[in-house]
């Protein structure tokens, strides 16, 4: 990735987003979805700017706050959205494919909110009280949460999509093969 220039990396990110925009489901998005989109749009723009274009320009000391900012932003959305009647953001995070009851979604949302609040606080506490090495270890330990969500989604969301896509291409390939075979 080091060889790729920032504009190329930006394009590699933006082009799929354009595709996503073009292929977006034509249905009403909930407030929670918009809130998450807005938050991640801002966080993403920040990451893009300071990650690629103005790396040394990031405010001093922010590095210790970054995980907390993300966790608490997510926690805030998870708490505020249901209060505003915007639905449960946990549903967006986990995916809309699971048929859970509203009660189950509510508790799941609360669980996520509590977890992210705690993680944000824990990050600040570890960064101030523990060594830098321990803090880095803690940060990567927290990424395990992310991994669990990824695995969960991989199993229940990505694989079915992949199956659909694979079946689509398989059918196309067999049809093409038959068409070519008929030529001879």
């Amino acid at each position, binding site marked *: 990735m080091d060889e790729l220039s920032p504009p190329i990396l930006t394009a590699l990110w933006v082009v799929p987003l354009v595709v996503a925009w073009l292929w*977006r*489901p034509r249905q009403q998005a909930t407030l929670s979805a918009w809130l998450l989109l807005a938050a*991640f749009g801002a966080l993403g723009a920040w*990451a893009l700017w300071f990650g690629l274009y103005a790396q040394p320009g990031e405010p001093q000391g922010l590095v210790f706050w970054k995980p907390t900012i993300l966790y608490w932003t997510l926690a805030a959305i998870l708490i505020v959205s249901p209060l505003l009647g915007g639905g449960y953001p946990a549903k967006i995070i986990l995916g809309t494919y*699971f048929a859970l009851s509203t009660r189950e979604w509510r508790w799941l949302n609360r669980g996520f909110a509590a977890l992210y609040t705690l993680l944000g606080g824990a990050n600040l506490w570890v960064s101030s009280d523990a060594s830098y090495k321990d803090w880095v270890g803690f940060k990567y330990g927290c990424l395990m949460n*992310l991994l669990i969500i990824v695995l969960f989604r991989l199993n229940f969301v990505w694989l079915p999509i992949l*199956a659909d896509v694979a079946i689509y291409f398989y059918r196309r390939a067999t049809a093409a093969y038959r068409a070519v075979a008929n030529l001879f």
Partner: protein
Amino acid sequence: MPSAERKPDHLVELTWPGRRTQLATLTATGKSGGAGEIFEIDANPGLLAKIYHTATTQAHLEHYHHKIQWMIDNPPELPQVPAEYADVVQLAWPVALIRRQSRFVGFAMRKIAFDRTLELDYLLNRRQAALEGFDADYGKLVTVSFNLASIIHCLHDKRIAIVDLKPMNVKVYKAELYVSILDCDGFHIVADEFRSDAPQVTPEYLAPEFHDKAVAHPQAQDRFALATIIFRLLNFGIHPFAGISADHRNYPPELAGRIKQGLYPYGKLAHKSVRKVPASVHEAFPESLRELFDRAFASTGFSRPSPHEWADALGIYASKQSGYLTPCSKGHLHFAGQPCPTCMRDALIHGAHIRRRSFLARVQTAPARTLRYMRKTLRQTHSSPFQAALAQKSFAVVQLAPATISTRGAIALEILWISGLLITFWWTS
């Protein structure tokens, strides 16, 4: 002895029976064995000369001299061949001594027409035999076996044993089906005035009682090797001690070890420790031959069938007039009253081929079937009640909502989701 003394083109002297001598010139053929090198004899195109290697010690050369002289003086009486096959050489037996500067250096023997013959080894594989121009069927194989047994019977009558009897040392005339045995100067000979041992052995054809020790009874060894060759000829090259371990207890990986332990799986009574190779067709052999094989491989020493017994048993099948070999519905010759071994073999091989094709087809379609199964599971659209029950069981913890968006829409959402993940990773790492 200096090597220059035996240059190929040097003049040599042939000493025929009756001490008649003849001068001749040798030309190298490029063929060489363990004991000596083969030369053409210019004056006698029907003969070949075997000249012992220069490294042969004087004592060995002396021994060879006596042995070859005895062999020339005492040729065995071989089975009669019809007059039109008079040029068939059944034994590469010495016919003249060869001397150079009055010293014994080798012997002359009748030339075997290599273009009319093939190694018996090739007959163990039908495809290989066909490539060599020999269309092997049971009629021919039984005849070859009969001819081999007959020659060995003649040799044993003269108290001569081959000892290192193996397919590589036997040539078969493609059209006439007579066999020719090579390396006669390595035979074991016992005569009143003379005795010559044969130390050379091949473990795959060595009787169990002679493993790790000298061959005390050369004729018993020949009986074992002959039975092994006949078994292989009739059973598509499968060695009588090739098998599959039935109890997984110390089954020797090499044939020699299995012979030593007597692990013969093709007997009329099944061996408890070893099973037959699935491709074997020994069950299509007549009872008389199966009994001989059982005696050859399940007993020791002179209890094994003699070459004469083999010749007797095979003779009735080798004779076209006897009618003991009959064609099956597909035209293959087989032992009368027995199933056709060639058809059995075809069915076994063909069956394996069909199973292999079916397996490959299943492997090739596995990804598509897996994807179809996964999709049906996720959408809960299994038509089979069993699969539906299985699918419901697997996902009882998480109930999936029916898909309400298109695949494109789902991909769009996932792009956003993965972007979110990357952003999260950047902020938390």
